[in-house]
């Protein structure tokens, strides 16, 4: 089951540069939350703080709290490695491990955690994850082929399968469809709808229609000017956001759209 995330007074820095300012947001479990906003407003940056991927960039750090079911991820005693095990992530461009087969790609995360997996357990897990990622039927006959040989949309679903195979509580997705063609996009959107039964999903998208189609809640980030920190401008359930936003900037952005 998904877990809830509460972000409190989060300031996010790249070195000395304050990239995102004072974010407060409550992300509901088993719902899809979309982050939208103009380029550079910090959507990706915020997303990456939710599984402590932000800090792998040299000099990057945060101030504030991110509570996963009440436990602050940024507490001293929390190991980022285990956070990332609980919070999965899917990236803008599909990134299967190029040297691994489809099967090995799915198992990559699991093998890190537990080296002694029986073959049959592994088989079951691969099937489960690939079915979950809506990819099973397409690849079941060639699990030992390299993952890199798949089409873009298939690769992206493979990456989702790889992420869910570790059985995280939360799934973060940073523009997972922006490199995909419409048909693949549809497949991934369907998948997201389905996955929210099991996971809390946060998705960054440039595409407002996509947000409108798949998200339960939408967060609109904005920035005053280039070089200024971004901030969370408005957060609402998706219907409100797109039909009746109570925020002028959001209204302008949502209606004046042409992306």
């Amino acid at each position: 089951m998904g877990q809830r995330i509460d972000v409190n007074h989060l300031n996010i820095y790249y070195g000395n540069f304050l990239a995102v300012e004072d974010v407060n947001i409550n992300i509901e479990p088993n719902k899809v939350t979309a982050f939208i906003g103009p380029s550079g407003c910090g959507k990706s940056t915020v997303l990456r703080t939710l599984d402590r991927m932000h800090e792998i960039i040299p000099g990057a750090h945060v101030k504030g709290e991110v509570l996963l079911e009440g436990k602050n991820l940024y507490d001293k005693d929390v190991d980022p490695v285990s956070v990332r095990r609980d919070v999965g992530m899917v990236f803008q461009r599909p990134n299967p491990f190029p040297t691994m087969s489809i099967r090995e790609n799915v198992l990559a995360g699991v093998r890190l955690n537990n080296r002694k997996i029986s073959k049959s357990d592994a088989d079951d897990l691969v099937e489960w994850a690939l079915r979950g990622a809506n990819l099973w039927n397409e690849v079941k006959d060639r699990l030992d082929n390299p993952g890199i040989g798949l089409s873009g949309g298939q690769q992206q679903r493979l990456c989702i399968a790889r992420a869910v195979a570790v059985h995280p509580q939360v799934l973060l997705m940073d523009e997972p469809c922006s490199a995909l063609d419409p048909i693949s996009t549809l497949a991934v959107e369907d998948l997201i709808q389905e996955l929210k039964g099991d996971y809390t999903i946060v998705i960054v998208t440039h595409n407002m229609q996509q947000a409108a189609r798949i998200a339960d809640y939408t967060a609109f980030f904005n920035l005053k000017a280039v070089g200024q920190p971004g901030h969370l401008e408005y957060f609402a359930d998706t219907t409100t956001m797109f039909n009746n936003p109570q925020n002028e900037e959001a209204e302008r952005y949502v209606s004046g759209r042409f992306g």
Partner: protein
Amino acid sequence: MADLTQDPKASLAGAPVIDFDKFKPSRSFVASRKRKDMAMRVLISLAFVVACIPLVSVLWTTIANGVKRLNLNFLSYNMTGVVGGNPTPSGGYGGVFHAIIGTLEITGGAMIISIPIGLMCAVYLVEYAHGGKLAQTITLLVDVMSGIPSIVAGLFAFSMFTILIGPGSVNGFAGSVALSLLMLPTVVKSSEEMLKIVPGDLREASYALGVTKQRTITKIVLRTALPGIVSGCILAIARVIGETAPLIMTAGFIVSTNFNLFDGKMATLPVYVYQEYSTLYANCAPSAGPECVATIPMERSWAAALVLILIVLILNGIGRLVAKVFAVKSER
């Protein structure tokens, strides 16, 4: 499209039920992973520290032994009229002026031969050949060529000049030929890499403006890749500037300054270092005063080695500077 929009539930229907506890890492395993991570961190840092010892020792030895005799006099005089361990009229003990000239001219010659050829070869590989059979062969052979032992290059240049010019022909240019053979693969490889990373966009943009291929290459592609090409060439020069064996064979050794690359022997710094090392001691007559230094050859040897390192350093500096000046301003 139809088969892609199939009912997703159907796909999960046959899915096996998974007991995820099975895959949960045991606590001890988590700890052991952490330990392993730490161990590797330590090991890698240790590898670094251990490897640093000899490398630092090499640098330190050269600097410590080299500074003793490294002065303006050493840089501005050659070895003519240097007898035994006695000082010369100028108050020094001979110097490396002639060897610096030789090194610069011979390496310069090698540059003039190999940089245009190497660069054009890279242009051919990247811009014209498009991975054909010939290009593959050339790429492979360039790789293989980078493994040519320097002494073989020396033998080649020596044999070539013996056969073409006649026996006993020793000149700086033969050294240049030997060095260019060693430089060529590095120049080709690095230029090739640099040309490859010039975005295809830019070529297309240029073609789309109705610019010919030749002008596109010279004015857009080469210009954009210039900083990288320069650093690559500097690297190639650094690679050959310290070659000794092929130069002993081809350029020989003299004590006076020879400015003519094409005629007569030429001293070079590495050969000088080696010659002085081979001399080891200078003789001081029993009657000689304290100004006669018996250990002067080794001291000169280290000082020349240091000069060589300094030249490499300066070259690197120049390379960086040039790269910076011509850098593609990409900051937004």
